[in-house]
């Protein structure tokens, strides 16, 4: 009755994920004081540091995705036909979003600007991924035949790997004080 229909549910879910990601990831970098960053610099290499941040934020984001999926189902009804598939998509999506935003948070932290700059930089880069994610998760609602589903999943995974590799290569340059 008052529950949104599938497309709206899907769109709302991914928009919420976007905001959750921006806020969750922003805190991880932007609340570190310079003193603590210096301490990390002395005890760990740049590569290890950024890998640790990437993995931690990915796990955090996956947890957040599951929590928000639960809340969505509670508050907005459950139009999912294939819930397990959607859980998988939510995890993959959360992971992808968090990887991009983690690195952008590192850039914004270096620029000593707030989460606003991170959102400005992140928004264009994340639009293609969100579009792909929405397309992919539509298959969990009805038995829509999405011809290139495997391609989309592979593309998302490849993008994640690309972002991780770029972050690991570029972070040492950001790290130098």
């Amino acid at each position: 009755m008052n529950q949104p229909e599938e497309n709206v549910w899907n769109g709302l879910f991914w928009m919420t994920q976007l905001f959750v990601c921006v806020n969750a990831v922003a805190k991880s970098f932007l609340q570190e004081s310079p003193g603590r960053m210096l301490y990390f610099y002395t005890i760990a290499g740049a590569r290890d540091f950024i890998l640790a941040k990437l993995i931690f934020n990915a796990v955090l984001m996956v947890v957040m995705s599951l929590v928000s999926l639960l809340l969505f189902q509670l508050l907005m009804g459950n139009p999912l036909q294939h819930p397990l598939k959607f859980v998988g998509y939510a995890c993959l999506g959360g992971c992808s979003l968090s990887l991009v935003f983690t690195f952008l948070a590192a850039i914004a932290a270096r620029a000593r600007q707030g989460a606003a700059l991170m959102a400005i930089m992140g928004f264009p880069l994340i639009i293609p991924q969100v579009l792909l994610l929405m397309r992919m998760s539509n298959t969990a609602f009805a038995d829509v035949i999405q011809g290139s589903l495997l391609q989309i999943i592979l593309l998302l995974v490849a993008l994640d790997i690309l972002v991780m590799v770029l972050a690991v290569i570029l972070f040492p340059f950001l790290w130098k004080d």
Partner: protein
Amino acid sequence: MRRSWWKILSIVLLLYCFIGGLFVPLPYQIAYQDSNLYESMRNFFFHVPMWFSQLAMITVSLVYSIKYLGKPTIQSDIYAAEFARTGTVLGCLGLVTGAIWANYTWGTYWNNDPKQIGAAIALLIYVAYFVLRNSMTDIDKRGRVAAVYNIFAYFIYIPMIMILPRLTESLHPGGKGSEGNPGLGGSSLDPAMRAVFWPGVLGWILLATWITTLLLRVRLLEEKKLSR
């Protein structure tokens, strides 16, 4: 930068492309029979070369950003920023010419076509690049952070623009519903059009480089004055 042979070449090529573009006979089947393009297909000689030269400018900006990370000199930073600036302007032009073309052939100015969205994203990425640059006052930090963002954004953007339109249904040629290379209209380009098109691409790239060198000369002079 001050030599004039390539600037004259660029003007000649552009004049050739403009005049040729308006006079060359269009391939009958593609332009008149199979689609509603008719004479608007001539926009092909304007819209697509602008895109090619935007890609060229952005790639050069990337090269200078990588150079900056290897050896941080203020020149590399200025070069990267100015090439990105020209690339952004060309991107705006490409988007506008594409929108005008779309209004006549696809119905509306904005169709949520993947390539259009990709183009808008490119613009937003480079606007964010300039916002990032302006948010920092320390020159070294600005150069380094901006270079890192430039490289990161480029390597995410280029796969997107190359792969996405081919994967999904797209109004542009080369998307799911049609065949051929998304850049070149159909399975192969008509030879008469090809003869006008490629020189036009070169002409636009040279023009964009010329504009950039002018911007560069101003900035480098400013920099020299500041550092004295």
